[in-house]
Protein backbone atom coordinates (compact mmCIF):
# COMPACT_ATOMS: atom_id res chain seq x y z
CA UNK A 1 0.00 0.00 0.00
CA UNK A 2 1.46 3.36 -1.05
CA UNK A 3 1.01 6.07 1.56
CA UNK A 4 1.47 9.77 0.86
CA UNK A 5 2.59 12.17 3.58
CA UNK A 6 2.76 15.84 2.77
CA UNK A 7 3.10 19.42 4.07
CA UNK A 8 5.35 20.77 6.81
CA UNK A 9 5.14 17.58 8.86
CA UNK A 10 6.75 15.46 6.15
CA UNK A 11 10.37 15.66 7.35
CA UNK A 12 9.36 15.22 11.00
CA UNK A 13 7.29 12.17 10.04
CA UNK A 14 10.19 10.72 8.06
CA UNK A 15 12.66 11.22 10.96
CA UNK A 16 10.22 9.53 13.33
CA UNK A 17 9.81 6.65 10.92
CA UNK A 18 13.56 6.12 10.48
CA UNK A 19 14.10 6.30 14.25
CA UNK A 20 11.47 3.60 14.64
CA UNK A 21 13.20 1.46 11.99
CA UNK A 22 16.52 1.89 13.82
CA UNK A 23 15.01 0.66 17.06
CA UNK A 24 13.01 -2.19 15.59
CA UNK A 25 14.91 -3.33 12.50
CA UNK A 26 12.56 -5.51 10.49
CA UNK A 27 13.10 -6.42 6.86
CA UNK A 28 14.97 -4.49 4.21
CA UNK A 29 14.34 -0.81 3.54
CA UNK A 30 15.46 1.73 0.97
CA UNK A 31 15.17 5.51 0.86
CA UNK A 32 15.50 7.70 -2.20
CA UNK A 33 15.68 11.49 -1.83
CA UNK A 34 14.69 13.38 -4.99
CA UNK A 35 15.30 17.11 -5.58
CA UNK A 36 12.19 18.67 -7.07
CA UNK A 37 14.03 21.44 -8.94
CA UNK A 38 14.90 19.14 -11.85
CA UNK A 39 11.43 17.61 -12.17
CA UNK A 40 8.50 18.75 -14.29
CA UNK A 41 5.91 20.72 -12.35
CA UNK A 42 3.25 18.23 -11.37
CA UNK A 43 0.76 17.45 -8.67
CA UNK A 44 1.64 15.02 -5.92
CA UNK A 45 -1.02 12.64 -7.25
CA UNK A 46 0.54 12.66 -10.70
CA UNK A 47 3.98 11.95 -9.24
CA UNK A 48 2.51 9.01 -7.32
CA UNK A 49 0.85 7.65 -10.46
CA UNK A 50 4.16 7.71 -12.33
CA UNK A 51 6.25 6.03 -9.65
CA UNK A 52 3.65 3.46 -8.63
CA UNK A 53 4.62 0.83 -11.23
CA UNK A 54 8.29 1.14 -10.13
CA UNK A 55 7.26 0.16 -6.60
CA UNK A 56 5.46 -3.02 -7.64
CA UNK A 57 8.20 -5.24 -6.20
CA UNK A 58 8.20 -3.40 -2.85
CA UNK A 59 6.17 -4.82 -0.01
CA UNK A 60 5.25 -1.37 1.29
CA UNK A 61 6.06 2.25 0.49
CA UNK A 62 5.60 5.79 1.76
CA UNK A 63 6.21 9.02 -0.10
CA UNK A 64 7.07 12.16 1.88
CA UNK A 65 6.55 15.50 0.10
CA UNK A 66 8.73 17.96 1.97
CA UNK A 67 7.63 21.44 0.86
CA UNK A 68 8.65 22.32 -2.69
CA UNK A 69 12.23 21.13 -2.44
CA UNK A 70 12.42 17.38 -1.85
CA UNK A 71 10.47 14.18 -2.18
CA UNK A 72 11.51 11.16 -0.10
CA UNK A 73 10.45 7.68 -1.21
CA UNK A 74 10.79 5.05 1.50
CA UNK A 75 10.07 1.41 0.68
CA UNK A 76 10.41 -2.04 2.13
CA UNK A 77 11.39 -5.23 0.32
CA UNK A 78 14.02 -5.65 -2.38
CA UNK A 79 16.33 -2.66 -2.59
CA UNK A 80 18.26 -2.81 -5.86
CA UNK A 81 15.40 -3.70 -8.23
CA UNK A 82 13.10 -1.04 -6.84
CA UNK A 83 15.88 1.55 -6.80
CA UNK A 84 16.69 0.83 -10.43
CA UNK A 85 13.04 1.02 -11.46
CA UNK A 86 12.50 4.27 -9.56
CA UNK A 87 15.64 5.83 -11.05
CA UNK A 88 14.53 4.80 -14.54
CA UNK A 89 11.03 6.23 -14.29
CA UNK A 90 12.23 9.49 -12.72
CA UNK A 91 14.99 10.14 -15.25
CA UNK A 92 12.98 9.00 -18.27
CA UNK A 93 9.53 10.42 -17.54
CA UNK A 94 9.65 13.06 -14.84
CA UNK A 95 12.65 15.24 -15.64
CA UNK A 96 12.01 18.78 -16.85
CA UNK A 97 12.17 18.90 -20.64
CA UNK A 98 14.45 21.96 -20.62
CA UNK A 99 17.14 20.27 -18.55
CA UNK A 100 19.84 18.75 -20.73
CA UNK A 101 21.84 17.21 -17.91
CA UNK A 102 20.29 16.80 -14.47
CA UNK A 103 22.30 17.79 -11.41
CA UNK A 104 24.41 14.90 -10.09
CA UNK A 105 22.91 15.21 -6.61
CA UNK A 106 19.36 15.19 -7.96
CA UNK A 107 18.75 11.76 -6.45
CA UNK A 108 20.42 10.28 -3.42
CA UNK A 109 19.93 6.72 -2.22
CA UNK A 110 20.21 5.79 1.46
CA UNK A 111 19.97 2.54 3.36
CA UNK A 112 17.96 3.44 6.48
CA UNK A 113 19.28 0.46 8.44
CA UNK A 114 22.95 1.19 7.77
CA UNK A 115 22.81 4.97 7.55
CA UNK A 116 19.90 5.73 9.88
CA UNK A 117 21.75 8.24 12.07
CA UNK A 118 23.38 9.86 9.06
CA UNK A 119 20.00 10.34 7.36
CA UNK A 120 18.45 11.80 10.50
CA UNK A 121 21.35 14.27 10.86
CA UNK A 122 20.96 15.22 7.20
CA UNK A 123 17.20 15.74 7.58
CA UNK A 124 17.61 17.78 10.75
CA UNK A 125 20.11 20.07 9.03
CA UNK A 126 17.52 21.02 6.41
CA UNK A 127 15.71 24.35 6.80
CA UNK A 128 12.16 23.97 8.14
CA UNK A 129 9.71 23.07 5.39
CA UNK A 130 7.65 25.95 4.15
CA UNK A 131 3.90 25.35 4.13
CA UNK A 132 2.89 24.42 0.57
CA UNK A 133 0.33 27.22 0.32
CA UNK A 134 2.95 29.92 0.95
CA UNK A 135 5.34 28.55 -1.62
CA UNK A 136 2.55 28.30 -4.22
CA UNK A 137 1.63 31.90 -3.55
CA UNK A 138 5.25 32.96 -4.01
CA UNK A 139 5.42 31.01 -7.27
CA UNK A 140 2.25 32.71 -8.52
CA UNK A 141 3.68 36.13 -7.70
CA UNK A 142 6.83 35.39 -9.67
CA UNK A 143 4.78 34.03 -12.57
CA UNK A 144 2.82 37.27 -12.89
CA UNK A 145 5.73 39.69 -12.44
CA UNK A 146 6.36 41.15 -15.92
CA UNK A 147 9.83 42.42 -16.81
CA UNK A 148 10.36 46.02 -17.93
CA UNK A 149 10.77 44.88 -21.53
CA UNK A 150 7.54 42.85 -21.39
CA UNK A 151 5.66 45.81 -19.91
CA UNK A 152 7.01 48.17 -22.56
CA UNK A 153 5.91 45.83 -25.34
CA UNK A 154 2.52 45.35 -23.69
CA UNK A 155 1.91 49.13 -23.43
CA UNK A 156 2.83 49.54 -27.11
CA UNK A 157 0.33 46.86 -28.10
CA UNK A 158 -2.30 48.26 -25.75
CA UNK A 159 -2.05 51.70 -27.36
CA UNK A 160 -2.90 50.11 -30.71
CA UNK A 161 -5.98 48.37 -29.28
CA UNK A 162 -8.48 51.09 -30.20
CA UNK A 163 -7.19 51.20 -33.81
CA UNK A 164 -7.43 47.47 -34.47
CA UNK A 165 -9.69 46.43 -37.31
CA UNK A 166 -9.33 42.75 -36.45
CA UNK A 167 -9.66 41.94 -32.77
CA UNK A 168 -7.11 39.80 -30.97
CA UNK A 169 -8.36 36.83 -28.98
CA UNK A 170 -6.44 34.72 -26.47
CA UNK A 171 -7.70 31.23 -25.64
CA UNK A 172 -6.45 29.63 -22.42
CA UNK A 173 -7.62 26.01 -22.25
CA UNK A 174 -5.63 22.98 -21.14
CA UNK A 175 -7.59 20.40 -23.13
CA UNK A 176 -6.33 20.21 -26.72
CA UNK A 177 -9.76 19.13 -28.03
CA UNK A 178 -11.57 22.13 -26.58
CA UNK A 179 -8.72 24.54 -27.36
CA UNK A 180 -8.57 23.41 -30.99
CA UNK A 181 -12.36 23.59 -31.39
CA UNK A 182 -12.55 27.17 -30.10
CA UNK A 183 -9.48 28.15 -32.11
CA UNK A 184 -11.00 26.85 -35.35
CA UNK A 185 -14.29 28.63 -34.69
CA UNK A 186 -12.61 32.00 -34.10
CA UNK A 187 -9.69 32.02 -36.53
CA UNK A 188 -10.32 33.82 -39.77
CA UNK A 189 -12.56 36.37 -38.08
CA UNK A 190 -10.11 37.17 -35.27
CA UNK A 191 -6.36 37.04 -34.67
CA UNK A 192 -6.18 34.11 -32.30
CA UNK A 193 -3.47 32.98 -29.90
CA UNK A 194 -3.91 29.93 -27.69
CA UNK A 195 -2.20 28.55 -24.62
CA UNK A 196 -2.67 25.36 -22.57
CA UNK A 197 -1.36 26.89 -19.33
CA UNK A 198 -1.19 30.04 -17.20
CA UNK A 199 2.51 30.64 -17.67
CA UNK A 200 2.44 30.76 -21.48
CA UNK A 201 -0.93 32.54 -21.45
CA UNK A 202 0.54 35.38 -19.38
CA UNK A 203 3.47 35.70 -21.81
CA UNK A 204 1.09 35.77 -24.79
CA UNK A 205 -1.11 38.30 -23.03
CA UNK A 206 1.82 40.67 -22.46
CA UNK A 207 3.06 40.16 -26.01
CA UNK A 208 -0.24 40.74 -27.82
CA UNK A 209 -2.50 42.72 -25.43
CA UNK A 210 -5.56 40.83 -26.70
CA UNK A 211 -9.00 42.44 -26.75
CA UNK A 212 -10.77 39.29 -25.57
CA UNK A 213 -9.61 36.36 -23.42
CA UNK A 214 -11.48 33.05 -23.20
CA UNK A 215 -10.12 31.59 -19.98
CA UNK A 216 -10.64 28.07 -18.65
CA UNK A 217 -10.81 27.84 -14.85
CA UNK A 218 -9.11 24.51 -14.12
CA UNK A 219 -5.64 24.47 -15.65
CA UNK A 220 -2.72 22.14 -15.07
CA UNK A 221 -0.49 24.82 -13.54
CA UNK A 222 -3.09 26.69 -11.53
CA UNK A 223 -6.42 28.41 -11.43
CA UNK A 224 -7.77 30.61 -14.23
CA UNK A 225 -9.25 33.04 -11.70
CA UNK A 226 -5.70 34.07 -10.73
CA UNK A 227 -4.91 35.05 -14.31
CA UNK A 228 -8.29 36.79 -14.70
CA UNK A 229 -7.51 38.91 -11.66
CA UNK A 230 -4.06 39.83 -13.01
CA UNK A 231 -5.44 40.73 -16.43
CA UNK A 232 -8.25 42.89 -15.06
CA UNK A 233 -5.79 44.66 -12.74
CA UNK A 234 -3.28 45.40 -15.49
CA UNK A 235 -5.71 45.99 -18.37
CA UNK A 236 -9.35 46.53 -17.30
CA UNK A 237 -10.37 47.09 -20.93
CA UNK A 238 -9.63 43.44 -21.75
CA UNK A 239 -12.87 41.50 -22.10
CA UNK A 240 -12.43 38.34 -20.04
CA UNK A 241 -14.80 35.39 -20.45
CA UNK A 242 -14.43 32.46 -18.05
CA UNK A 243 -15.02 29.05 -19.61
CA UNK A 244 -15.83 26.01 -17.51
CA UNK A 245 -17.54 22.64 -17.36
CA UNK A 246 -18.34 23.22 -13.68
CA UNK A 247 -21.40 25.04 -12.44
CA UNK A 248 -20.13 25.89 -8.96
CA UNK A 249 -21.41 28.99 -7.22
CA UNK A 250 -17.88 29.65 -5.93
CA UNK A 251 -16.56 30.02 -9.47
CA UNK A 252 -19.32 32.48 -10.37
CA UNK A 253 -18.66 34.51 -7.21
CA UNK A 254 -14.90 34.49 -7.81
CA UNK A 255 -15.45 35.62 -11.41
CA UNK A 256 -17.65 38.50 -10.20
CA UNK A 257 -15.05 39.55 -7.65
CA UNK A 258 -12.46 39.69 -10.43
CA UNK A 259 -14.84 41.85 -12.56
CA UNK A 260 -14.73 39.41 -15.46
CA UNK A 261 -17.14 40.14 -18.26
CA UNK A 262 -18.70 36.82 -19.17
CA UNK A 263 -19.12 33.18 -18.31
CA UNK A 264 -19.54 30.26 -20.74
CA UNK A 265 -20.56 26.82 -19.50
CA UNK A 266 -19.33 23.91 -21.63
CA UNK A 267 -20.37 22.65 -24.12
CA UNK A 268 -19.35 25.54 -26.36
CA UNK A 269 -21.79 26.56 -29.06
CA UNK A 270 -21.71 29.14 -31.82
CA UNK A 271 -24.60 30.90 -30.12
CA UNK A 272 -22.86 31.16 -26.72
CA UNK A 273 -19.66 32.45 -28.30
CA UNK A 274 -21.49 34.90 -30.56
CA UNK A 275 -23.49 36.26 -27.62
CA UNK A 276 -20.21 37.01 -25.81
CA UNK A 277 -18.67 38.66 -28.85
CA UNK A 278 -21.79 40.75 -29.52
CA UNK A 279 -21.76 41.92 -25.93
CA UNK A 280 -18.10 42.85 -26.24
CA UNK A 281 -18.82 44.93 -29.35
CA UNK A 282 -21.54 46.80 -27.50
CA UNK A 283 -19.38 47.64 -24.47
CA UNK A 284 -16.02 48.06 -26.23
CA UNK A 285 -16.24 51.84 -26.87
CA UNK A 286 -17.13 52.50 -23.23
CA UNK A 287 -14.37 50.18 -21.96
CA UNK A 288 -11.70 51.84 -24.09
CA UNK A 289 -12.94 55.36 -23.26
CA UNK A 290 -12.85 54.56 -19.56
CA UNK A 291 -9.25 53.39 -19.80
CA UNK A 292 -8.04 56.33 -21.92
CA UNK A 293 -9.66 58.83 -19.54
CA UNK A 294 -7.99 57.22 -16.55
Amino acid at each position, binding site marked *: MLIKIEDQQAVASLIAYIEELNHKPTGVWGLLAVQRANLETMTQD*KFIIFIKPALEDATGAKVFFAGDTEIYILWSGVQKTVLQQLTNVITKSLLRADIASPAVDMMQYYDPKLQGNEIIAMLRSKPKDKPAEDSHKAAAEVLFMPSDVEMQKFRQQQQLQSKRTMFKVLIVEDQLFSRQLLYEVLRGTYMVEASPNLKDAWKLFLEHAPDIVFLDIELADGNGHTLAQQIKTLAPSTYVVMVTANHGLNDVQQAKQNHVDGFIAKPFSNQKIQTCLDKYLSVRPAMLAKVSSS
Partner: protein
Amino acid sequence: MNTSVDLTNLREMTGNDAALEKELFNIFLITAAESITILRNSCEPDATEAWRKAAHALKGISLNLGAEGLGKLCEEAQDSATAMQDKKQAMLADIEAEHMRVEGFLTNL
Protein backbone atom coordinates in the same frame (compact mmCIF):
# COMPACT_ATOMS: atom_id res chain seq x y z
CA MET B 1 -29.23 3.65 -33.29
CA ASN B 2 -26.24 4.83 -31.25
CA THR B 3 -27.31 7.77 -29.10
CA SER B 4 -24.00 8.11 -27.24
CA VAL B 5 -22.99 11.12 -29.29
CA ASP B 6 -25.00 13.97 -30.78
CA LEU B 7 -22.78 15.80 -33.25
CA THR B 8 -25.31 18.51 -34.15
CA ASN B 9 -23.68 21.23 -32.06
CA LEU B 10 -20.10 20.26 -32.97
CA ARG B 11 -20.94 20.22 -36.69
CA GLU B 12 -22.52 23.63 -36.41
CA MET B 13 -19.27 24.88 -34.89
CA THR B 14 -16.96 23.22 -37.41
CA GLY B 15 -19.16 24.20 -40.34
CA ASN B 16 -19.37 20.52 -41.33
CA ASP B 17 -15.64 20.49 -42.11
CA ALA B 18 -15.00 16.72 -42.36
CA ALA B 19 -11.19 17.01 -42.11
CA LEU B 20 -11.41 19.15 -38.98
CA GLU B 21 -13.96 16.76 -37.48
CA LYS B 22 -11.63 13.84 -38.09
CA GLU B 23 -8.75 15.70 -36.44
CA LEU B 24 -10.94 16.56 -33.43
CA PHE B 25 -12.18 12.97 -33.10
CA ASN B 26 -8.58 11.72 -33.05
CA ILE B 27 -7.66 14.23 -30.38
CA PHE B 28 -10.73 13.20 -28.38
CA LEU B 29 -9.92 9.49 -28.57
CA ILE B 30 -6.30 9.96 -27.50
CA THR B 31 -7.14 12.36 -24.66
CA ALA B 32 -10.06 10.25 -23.43
CA ALA B 33 -7.85 7.14 -23.32
CA GLU B 34 -5.26 9.06 -21.28
CA SER B 35 -7.89 10.30 -18.83
CA ILE B 36 -9.29 6.79 -18.40
CA THR B 37 -5.79 5.45 -17.68
CA ILE B 38 -5.39 8.06 -14.94
CA LEU B 39 -8.81 7.17 -13.51
CA ARG B 40 -7.86 3.47 -13.56
CA ASN B 41 -4.69 4.29 -11.58
CA SER B 42 -6.47 6.59 -9.13
CA CYS B 43 -9.11 4.36 -7.58
CA GLU B 44 -7.31 4.27 -4.25
CA PRO B 45 -8.65 6.68 -1.64
CA ASP B 46 -5.40 8.71 -1.49
CA ALA B 47 -5.49 9.66 -5.16
CA THR B 48 -8.45 12.04 -4.95
CA GLU B 49 -6.98 14.97 -6.88
CA ALA B 50 -5.72 12.86 -9.79
CA TRP B 51 -9.15 11.18 -10.01
CA ARG B 52 -11.04 14.49 -9.82
CA LYS B 53 -8.86 16.21 -12.43
CA ALA B 54 -9.02 13.31 -14.88
CA ALA B 55 -12.81 13.11 -14.50
CA HIS B 56 -13.08 16.87 -14.98
CA ALA B 57 -10.90 16.81 -18.10
CA LEU B 58 -12.88 13.97 -19.66
CA LYS B 59 -16.17 15.66 -18.76
CA GLY B 60 -15.16 18.88 -20.54
CA ILE B 61 -14.15 17.28 -23.82
CA SER B 62 -17.12 14.87 -23.75
CA LEU B 63 -19.58 17.76 -23.42
CA ASN B 64 -17.86 19.68 -26.21
CA LEU B 65 -17.95 16.59 -28.44
CA GLY B 66 -21.64 16.02 -27.78
CA ALA B 67 -21.19 12.87 -25.69
CA GLU B 68 -23.58 13.97 -22.99
CA GLY B 69 -23.91 10.56 -21.33
CA LEU B 70 -20.15 10.22 -20.88
CA GLY B 71 -20.02 13.82 -19.66
CA LYS B 72 -22.65 13.11 -17.01
CA LEU B 73 -20.86 9.98 -15.79
CA CYS B 74 -17.63 11.98 -15.52
CA GLU B 75 -19.40 14.74 -13.61
CA GLU B 76 -20.62 12.15 -11.12
CA ALA B 77 -17.07 10.77 -10.86
CA GLN B 78 -15.62 14.26 -10.41
CA ASP B 79 -18.03 14.92 -7.54
CA SER B 80 -17.15 11.55 -5.94
CA ALA B 81 -13.36 11.89 -5.83
CA THR B 82 -13.26 11.01 -2.14
CA ALA B 83 -15.48 7.92 -2.54
CA MET B 84 -14.37 4.47 -1.44
CA GLN B 85 -12.34 2.34 -3.84
CA ASP B 86 -15.21 -0.01 -4.75
CA LYS B 87 -17.50 2.90 -5.63
CA LYS B 88 -14.78 4.49 -7.75
CA GLN B 89 -14.22 1.16 -9.54
CA ALA B 90 -17.95 0.87 -10.27
CA MET B 91 -18.02 4.41 -11.66
CA LEU B 92 -14.93 3.67 -13.73
CA ALA B 93 -16.61 0.57 -15.20
CA ASP B 94 -19.59 2.72 -16.28
CA ILE B 95 -17.27 5.34 -17.78
CA GLU B 96 -15.27 2.68 -19.65
CA ALA B 97 -18.44 1.10 -21.05
CA GLU B 98 -19.82 4.45 -22.22
CA HIS B 99 -16.42 5.45 -23.59
CA MET B 100 -16.42 2.26 -25.67
CA ARG B 101 -19.81 3.21 -27.11
CA VAL B 102 -18.53 6.70 -27.97
CA GLU B 103 -15.35 5.27 -29.47
CA GLY B 104 -17.41 2.82 -31.54
CA PHE B 105 -19.60 5.64 -32.78
CA LEU B 106 -16.66 7.83 -33.79
CA THR B 107 -14.66 5.10 -35.48
CA ASN B 108 -17.68 3.89 -37.49
CA LEU B 109 -18.54 7.30 -38.93
